């Protein structure tokens, strides 16, 4: 698993990159009550706002960490947004991206580097 400075995680699964947010980010957001996911087949560019997470407190954006095409979204989050707090690095993935070259994921932080970032 790799990590961005925006507290997302990326995981290569088969031919795709799966994206979610870290436990640290989920704890900072507080209770998540609504997740707005992108449409399948959306083309996204690095830095695009792809997902909106509404917590009890506020709305936050998830930005696309890499360029790609959304091939699948986690529909379970629509009916059960609380999964983001319960299992942020497991069942609460947000979307899968088809990317040109899977090695694009290597540029991000590993677990130790991310642990240093959040102190």
């Amino acid at each position, binding site marked *: 698993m790799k990590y961005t400075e925006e507290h997302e995680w990326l995981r290569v699964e088969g031919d795709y990159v799966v994206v979610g947010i870290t436990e640290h980010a989920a704890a900072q957001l*507080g*209770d998540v009550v609504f997740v707005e996911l992108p449409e399948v087949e959306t083309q996204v560019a690095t830095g695009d706002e792809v997902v909106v997470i*509404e917590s*009890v*407190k506020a709305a936050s954006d998830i930005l696309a960490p890499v360029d790609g095409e959304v091939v699948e979204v986690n529909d379970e989050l629509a009916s059960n947004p609380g999964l983001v707090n319960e299992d942020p690095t497991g069942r609460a993935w947000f979307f899968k991206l088809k990317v040109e070259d899977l090695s694009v994921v290597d540029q991000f932080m590993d677990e130790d580097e991310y642990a240093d970032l959040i102190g």
Partner: protein
Amino acid sequence: MDLQRLPLHDLHVELGGRMVPFAGWHMPVQFEGVMAEHLHTRRAAGLFDVSHMGQVILRPRTDMAALCAEMEALMPVAAAALPEGRQRYGLLTNAQGGILDDLMFANRGDHLLLVVNAGRAAEDIAHLRAHLGDQVEPVTDRALLALQGPQAEDALARLVPAVMAMRFMDVITADTLFGALWISRSGYTGEDGFEISVPVPGAEGLARALLAMAEVAPIGLGARDSLRLEAGLCLHGHDIDASTTPVEAALSWAIPKSRRGGGFPGAERILAELADGPERLRVGLAPEGRAPMREGTALFAADGTPVGTVTSGGFGPSVGAPVAMGYVAAAHAAPGTPLFGEVRGKRLPVLVAALPFIPASFKR
């Protein structure tokens, strides 16, 4: 600007409170989590530190009747008929009928005790001094705690048995180990409960004594906001401000018949709106989907006409769905009216709803 620290700052940090700036103060926004704290308050009892709010004594130069008459010249509510040991909701208005602040005021025998909003305290005191002169004494040596929820009475009665006899909006003084407590049966969550003014040296002891009880948990600003939103209560600077009148804000209930002849700032506009109805009205709003409609969300009629704006909105943990309040043109203010709120460029359906979302459980 330097942030002020609450008398119980260190206790909040010890309890794991996440501290944020609010109205010039370091305030705990949450402890366990907004959702859990909100639901705990509705089910048991929540302890809130509301020491950031302004406590102000008005001590009459001559007698209470004269002081109450002077207060009535500043508020469209009834102060003269307020019996000793009772509290009321008040509104300071400006010459245009706008709401400078909302507040609680209590007749404590030889003085009035006001509790005003943190963000308005300095302006309120200046305003009061301009009209009431040296009768205005800010209270600087007391903390203010709120204990709210269906088990608040059981909890507080272990320390102060006299609270069992209090009705909603009663005020008493109780001499305790923690000093002389000024207790009112009130709060801002829609739940039964108490606000307790405690001398600073006794504040931590009182808070710890309450928190040691099984039903009492510390609650932060986040849940305070979601509780008062579900209860349909206004937050100054958001749902009401100097540009909204009490009639527009659906607070006409606070203006009794005895004051409908005028004699307060903004009477001309406020009385006209009472007679003819306001052009816009504060309403409850129930978004039909799961996306919260937050403050600033623009509201539209079915035909696309802009009809208003959300002034407070979020998720209602007890309702289990998004809830909001806002102002809409009077023609669209009836409960059940279908509207649309623009969220991130999309128009989502929302129904005008009766307030409150969660009925109050005051002990009358």
